[in-house]
């Protein structure tokens, strides 16, 4: 839960203890905001807080300096208790220029802490950001606790001794100065970042030294300045279960999950991809792990990436491809080939704002029906979606396991928020992980490429190089059992049904949904993917008002767990929050004929807890739930939740 700093009376000597706090850094894309955020996150994670982060950066490499589109932001909520979202609104905002102030001020909590680097609050920069007057001086910021500090100048001062660097190079260290300040404010140790700087700038010791000086400078500045004593906080570690933890983003987790799947299946990993935001980092990560036998292939395009992946699957690799919307669209025909040839491939879709090029760096959940239905003919596939960055690890493994067990393509739906968001993750021992050693078919006796396992309906995986099992695959309809080309009408129907039923069989072994929240709830929330945390936090918000709400979250989207129907029929109201215009709700309604209510947000930004909470109350009041523009039914966001609720 977010905390409001203004509730705390200043106490100079002793640090105020807070349960949780939300901090946002914002500046020009060139200001190193993402690095600052990343470092703050790591340090905070190691300090033992629970946390969630939300990086938010522009699609351009570097939009014109000082402009609104060039602003890059990074938000983190950290807490001494369990938390589920990066926070609805920042309690602390650190901005490096007027544009960042302009873009982010609206989100800052009333009486929130506002730290401004004043160095760019000159006429030219103010104008670029669309300010006609200087907000630091025109009294417009009195609602907040403003700390106008010329951080850039102070950074230069701190680095005065370094003669080898230019002024410009020194100025670039201001993000570490600000980071040092933030560390002091929340009583974080600076060692983790010191180590990181050392490692990162191994080859540029000057730069390393400069950053170290800046970091320490910022820290010391706060310590020595009276005004900051009033805003010195302490967020005790969150009680977590025993274990070793690390901080992890969804893309990192996903990449590691694939490496783990390779190790636990005994199959070499083949990863074919073409760069695209926000999926590229998985390729970058995997390319570093060649010593795990990983073969990465940066293809000429997504079609080739997918086609090569199908080829690698045929030849016996654990074959994975990934992309985001536009590239996933291009893979459709190759995935359809994998459906027909019943080869195991995993397709990772890191969803981003669409349609078309859309909002490349923003998050969205609008590829559900697309990946489920987006192939010609009846082309059933399995669909999984992790709910948190950490789950990206687990479901990458699970996607691989299902793919090779059922000889089927599996889509793994991540999104921009999971991909770049980070959270503490309990490191499992490799030996604890599910193991699924794959046995290729080797016995020519009675071998037929489409003879199925009666339980899974899976066909044998017989790979080139195996004597006696020579056979031909292809995209034309295959005869049952023999796999020969067949245009026979009844055979086509049988095979169509077998392909469907095989995927449906997966439901036999997937865990039933567990209801979280109130036993006797009036309303059930059902979600999927990265909305998990927001839904959970939203439920907690209404619970604080005495409303009983329960929650289930789908990780298996196709097939679904067997108890979904019973659950959605059990509650008086069912609310389905999604970052799209209503897609899961189509599936639930069609399958179970239940009047599932959609709660939609499609803004490239995750849900806030309060938005979920408002949706719940509206749904219970029988009022229209806020749905973007559903003409006539435009529900009011008529329930106010302040972050202290």
């Amino acid at each position, binding site marked *: 839960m977010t905390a409001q700093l203004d509730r705390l009376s200043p106490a100079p000597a002793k640090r105020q203890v807070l349960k949780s706090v939300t901090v946002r850094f914002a500046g020009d894309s060139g200001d190193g905001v993402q690095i600052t955020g990343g470092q703050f996150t790591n340090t905070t994670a*190691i300090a033992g807080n629970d946390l969630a982060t939300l990086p938010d950066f522009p699609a351009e490499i570097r939009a014109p300096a000082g402009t609104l589109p060039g602003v890059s932001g990074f938000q983190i909520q950290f807490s001494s208790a369990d938390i589920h979202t990066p926070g609805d609104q920042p309690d602390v905002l650190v901005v490096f220029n007027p544009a960042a102030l302009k873009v982010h001020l609206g989100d800052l909590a009333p009486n929130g802490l506002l730290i401004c680097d004043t160095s760019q609050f000159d006429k030219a920069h103010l104008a670029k950001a669309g300010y006609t007057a200087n907000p630091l001086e025109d009294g417009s910021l009195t609602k907040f606790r403003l700390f106008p500090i010329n951080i850039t100048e102070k950074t230069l001062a701190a680095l005065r001794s370094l003669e080898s660097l230019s002024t410009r190079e020194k100025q670039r260290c201001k993000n570490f100065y600000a980071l040092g300040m933030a560390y002091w404010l929340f009583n974080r140790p600076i060692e983790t970042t010191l180590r990181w700087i050392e490692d990162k700038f191994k080859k540029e010791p000057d730069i390393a030294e400069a950053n170290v000086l800046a970091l320490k400078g910022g820290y010391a500045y706060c310590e020595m300045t009276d005004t900051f004593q009033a805003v010195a906080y302490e967020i005790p570690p969150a009680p977590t279960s025993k274990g070793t933890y690390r901080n992890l983003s969804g893309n990192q987790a996903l990449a590691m999950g694939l490496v783990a799947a390779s190790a636990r299946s005994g199959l070499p990993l083949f990863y074919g991809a073409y760069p695209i935001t926000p999926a590229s980092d998985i390729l970058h990560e995997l390319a570093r792990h060649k010593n795990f036998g990983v073969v990465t292939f940066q293809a000429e395009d997504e079609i080739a990436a997918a086609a090569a992946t199908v080829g690698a699957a045929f030849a*016996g690799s654990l074959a994975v491809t990934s992309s985001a919307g536009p590239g996933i669209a291009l893979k459709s025909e190759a995935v359809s*080939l994998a459906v027909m040839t019943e080869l195991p491939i995993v397709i990772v879709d890191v969803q981003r704002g669409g349609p078309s090029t859309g909002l490349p760096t923003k998050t969205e959940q609008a590829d559900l029906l697309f990946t489920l239905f987006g192939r010609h003919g009846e082309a059933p596939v399995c669909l999984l979606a992790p709910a948190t960055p950490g789950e990206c690890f687990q479901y990458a493994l699970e996607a691989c396991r299902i793919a090779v067990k059922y000889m089927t393509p599996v889509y793994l739906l991540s999104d921009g928020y999971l991909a770049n968001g980070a959270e503490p993750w309990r490191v499992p021992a490799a030996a604890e992980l599910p193991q699924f050693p794959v046995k290729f078919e080797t016995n020519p006796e009675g071998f037929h490429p489409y003879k199925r396992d009666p339980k899974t309906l899976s066909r044998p995986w017989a790979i080139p190089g*195996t004597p006696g099992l020579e056979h031909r695959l292809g995209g034309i309809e295959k005869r049952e059992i023999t796999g020969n080309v067949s245009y026979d009408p009844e055979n086509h129907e049988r095979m169509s049904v077998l392909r469907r039923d095989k995927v449906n069989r997966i439901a036999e072994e997937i865990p039933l949904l567990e209801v979280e929240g109130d036993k006797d709830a009036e309303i059930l929330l059902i979600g999927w993917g990265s909305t998990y945390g927001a839904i959970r936090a939203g439920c907690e918000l209404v619970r604080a008002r005495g409303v009983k709400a329960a929650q289930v979250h789908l990780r298996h989207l196709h097939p679904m767990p067997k108890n979904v129907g019973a659950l959605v029929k059990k509650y008086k109201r069912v609310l389905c929050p999604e970052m799209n215009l209503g897609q899961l709700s189509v599936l639930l309604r069609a399958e179970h004929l239940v009047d599932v209510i959609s709660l939609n947000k499609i803004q490239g930004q995750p849900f806030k807890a309060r938005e979920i909470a408002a949706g719940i109350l509206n749904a219970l009041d029988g009022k229209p739930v806020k749905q973007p523009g559903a003409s006539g039914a435009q529900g009011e966001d008529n329930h106010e939740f302040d972050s202290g609720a």
Partner: protein
Amino acid sequence: MSSTAAPETPKAKLTKADFQSDQDVRWCPGCGDYAILSAAQQVFAGLGIPRQNFVMVSGIGCSSRFPYYVNTYGFHTIHGRAPAVATGIKMANPELQVWLITGDGDALSIGGNHLMHALRRNVDLKILLFNNRIYGLTKGQYSPTSEVGKVTKSTPFGSLDHPVNPISLALACEATFVARTADIYQQHLQETLKAAAAHKGSVFIEILQNCIIFNDGAFKDVTDRAIRDDKQVLLEHGRPLIFGKGHDKGLRFNGLDVEVVQLGKDGVTEKDLIVHDAYAENQTLAYLLSRVENPVPMGLFRNVTRPSFEQRAHAQVDETIKKYGKGDLDKLLKGKETWTVN
């Protein structure tokens, strides 16, 4: 690295019949594809490679039905994407002998980009392009190798596109082995396929192939028995470019042009002729010959070596393991910074 081929010794002697599958061959009677299939099966039998290590990969088209008829592993994929699928197969298991069968539409129209990238990467694939200058399977539309003005179902008033020259293109794509032959030249075809099998890296062979139904006689001006000797010239490494029924004509440089000369006339002798060099690193001669249309050069334009893509990829894996040790999953999971709760 992931070859699961049992290290058996191959059957003492495989025969052509060993490479014939149990599927009925479904090409039109008289189609040039039959001859190419037969040549390939013959050659495969003689390579000393176990049957299970062959993979035939194809796209879509009449020609792309090829894998069904060869009793090895095979993959009839989707239109134009065979080079990509084959790259995946070869990267997954470099020990496989991967042959890629494609048509002029499959390889040069929808699949042009994958072809280009497979060639420049030098993936060890033996690519056989059946060039009949028409779309066969879809019943006769013009293709990227059709001549301008071609009247087809889709171009009743004649096609407008300047054709692409497959050999020039392959060379510009940095292909390491480039050759041309024809369906009806059993012997030359077989020799070319044998040379292809011996090459480590991308092989590109344009095979002139007659589509008796939709483009009959497309190459008769070149390959008809009566005229062929005067209409084509055989490229053999280290040999002067002589042709003609009476071995009486040759090709000579004229600046950067090539001209046909009569041996013995005006004092022209063999020594004046271009001596073919297929092994030259510099591909200018090969390119220049690819532009010659009369006589049509047949044979080997280029044959050079460069490490193959999948070799390099696996070498990189091996080097990384050597340098950093075999990946330790526990270490990876932990990463650089962890903390512990007790």
